[in-house]
């Protein structure tokens, strides 16, 4: 199924014109996709292998990256399910001069309603990640896949492999059944903090409930572009429901979320808090302070305004140079040429922070 040679050349991973060439970088969003459910069988018990074979289960049906969609695969890249370690080494780690790359496996065990199957799949994925990605390649770090819809089992999985030095975070899809600030999720945060893991919240997911407050949109374009409003709901929930008061060491990163929308959310929620702070007496500071302290964003998709000046305005409005961390979102299509990977107008010092320093500090690499 996978091409042994690592696939066809990908134009987008030749950063010859990359304006910041020479600066070392950390890529905070690289996708390692499970080629098929069978890939996981060697890591699953006979019971679950039989269950999958007999039921015809072919894996979670999140479909948050439709296979043929232009966004899922850059026109010049190989499809995500063919991306393997040699390919990542050659086209990403080496050419982009990456000190580290963070893998985000987007296999949606969170869409599996059977909690034990979800946990078995997560366990298999993590063992597969250790064997095929982390052990052979010291530049890679990975995200622990957890059945976050069952926090007790998710915490167990964190306990099981959380001490492996290759894992730097747990990952959950942004679409959830209940917002992530809810105390229902405390066992996950408790385990993450105990094992010094960040918590990544990634684009996508399919919990079964509607992807917006107004029901189901008709097109993938609407769903993808509208996913920012789900991230907004999660940011608000995490802050106002007091997760950061409960777990002061908790580090959250929003992945493939965009970030230009954040200043507007800060202004709105800070204002709400002035009027409604009796709802949430545990918040001792402005909600935006908690966001700046605890939440980070991967860079792509930047959702750049047409005028580069406006992007710098937005970054200024964040009032923090620590919040953004470089990412390519490889092999998804987020930019056309390496020049677009990082906006060329960024001041060099800030570019350095985004490319390297912020991620290094955040992931404690």
């Amino acid at each position, binding site marked *: 199924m996978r091409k042994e040679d690592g696939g066809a050349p990908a134009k987008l991973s030749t950063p010859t014109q990359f304006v910041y060439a020479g600066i070392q970088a950390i890529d905070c969003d690289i996708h390692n996709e499970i080629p098929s459910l069978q890939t996981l069988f060697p890591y699953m018990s006979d019971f679950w292998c039989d269950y999958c074979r007999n039921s015809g289960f072919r894996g979670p049906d999140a479909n948050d990256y439709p296979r043929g969609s*232009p*966004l899922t695969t850059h026109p010049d890249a190989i499809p995500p399910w063919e991306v393997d370690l040699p390919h990542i080494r050659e086209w990403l780690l080496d050419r982009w001069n990456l000190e580290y790359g963070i893998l985000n496996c987007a296999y949606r065990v969170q869409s599996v309603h059977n909690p034990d199957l979800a946990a078995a799949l997560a366990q298999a994925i993590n063992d597969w990640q250790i064997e095929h990605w982390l052990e052979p390649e010291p530049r890679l770090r990975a995200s622990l896949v957890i059945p976050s819809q069952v926090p007790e089992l998710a915490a167990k999985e964190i306990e099981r492999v959380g001490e492996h030095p290759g894992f730097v975070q747990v990952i959950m899809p*942004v*679409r*959830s*059944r209940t*917002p992530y*600030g809810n105390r229902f999720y405390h066992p996950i945060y408790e385990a993450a903090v105990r094992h010094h893991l960040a918590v990544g919240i990634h684009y996508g997911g399919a*919990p079964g*409930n*509607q*992807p*917006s*407050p*107004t*029901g*189901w*949109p*008709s*097109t*993938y*374009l*609407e769903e993808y*572009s*509208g996913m*920012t*409003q*789900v991230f*907004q*709901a999660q940011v*608000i*929930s995490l802050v106002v*429901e007091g997760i950061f008061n409960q777990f002061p060491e908790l580090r959250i990163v929003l992945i493939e979320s*965009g970030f*230009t*929308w954040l*200043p*507007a*959310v800060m*202004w*709105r*929620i800070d*204002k*709400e808090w002035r*009027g*409604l702070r009796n*709802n*949430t007496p545990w918040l001792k500071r402005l909600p935006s302070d908690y966001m700046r302290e605890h939440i980070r964003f991967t860079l792509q*998709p*930047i*959702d*750049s*305004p*047409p005028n580069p000046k*406006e992007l710098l*305005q*937005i970054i200024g*409005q964040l*009032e923090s140079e620590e919040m953004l961390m470089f990412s390519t979102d490889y092999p998804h*299509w987020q930019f056309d040429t390496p020049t677009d990977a990082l906006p060329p107008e960024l001041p060099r010092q800030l570019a350095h922070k985004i490319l390297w320093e912020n991620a290094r500090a955040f992931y404690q690499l």
Partner: protein
Amino acid sequence: MENTSNLGRTLNSGKEVLKNENAVVDCDIHNSVPPGGLSPYLSKNWKEHHKQFGLRSRIGGYYPRALLNAARRDAWPPSGLPPGADLGFMQKQLLDAWNIEYGVLNPLIAVGEQLNLEYGAALAKAVNEWQIAEWVEPEPRLRASIVIPYEDGELAAEEIHRCGENPGFVQILLIARTRAPLGNRKYWKIYEAAAEYELPIGIHFGGVAGPITGAGWPSYYIEDHGGMPQAFHTQVISYVCEGVFDRFPTLRVALIEGGFAWLPPLIWRLDATWKKLRSEIPKLQRKPSEYIREHFWLSTQPMEEPPKREYFEQLLEQMDMDDKLMFATDYPHWDFDSPHRALPNFLKPELRRKILADNARALYQFEKK
């Protein structure tokens, strides 16, 4: 229940200060129905239905408001009626006090959310008749929004046809959290009728049709209230991507009580995503941002309040919609914006006039008094 009449104590009456050239158009006033107030407008059968079963919508989404009836403490009329139900008191506390030239009434009575669509249609008719008889006719500064059972396009269009010729109505009222995104074809009969009578669509804060975020149910009112822009996000995207403005090129949509700082990032994101995924909706004729800047108006309240002046100026420049922002008080609700204080004092006088009156005059075709 507090019935304190502290008008003039908590609010400075602006009457002496403002001259006519400083008149204000208020795009969001909530008139409410006193107990039994709709009875004269309902048939005997529906009155009986109302008595026996009352309002039934997709319940389960209630978060206790900041204050009783979500109202300002001083908005309870001395008459004992609920806030927004006493025209005389509203005239004094709002229209006179703030030199309101025109005010647009947006009654929030959940007629469109009713599970029983025919009951929703009967209620809509009653509410609309009540508005004309008890608000617009006695008070020439007020104009009303047509409420409709919007989850059924045909019933909704019927009500628009019934009311559309009456000059007392200046818009058709929808709600932010609908069962499907509003660009969906099931709502197109509404837009067809709106185009026929040249009435703008107003989408107001509120509604419950399912989990109120794309990530399920949050716990607190601050999330319900602060998260409302998320619903507006979805509606803007839906109108553009479903091709509503290609099909109804004269349609104008006012987003009411959603704030507006979230719009520029949404425009950028939608344009960027469309560039990659446009093959999915090949019929769309222009860039999403062009439709948005042309077809949407936004009311200001609750204003986002950036901590620095320059951020607000950047925001206005990024929006590039100086002709589309419209002032609103949200009277009598707790998060009322005052015409004196809500807009930053550094706004250029010309833009301030646009926001306080001219833009709304243009959208709602109000004559300047």
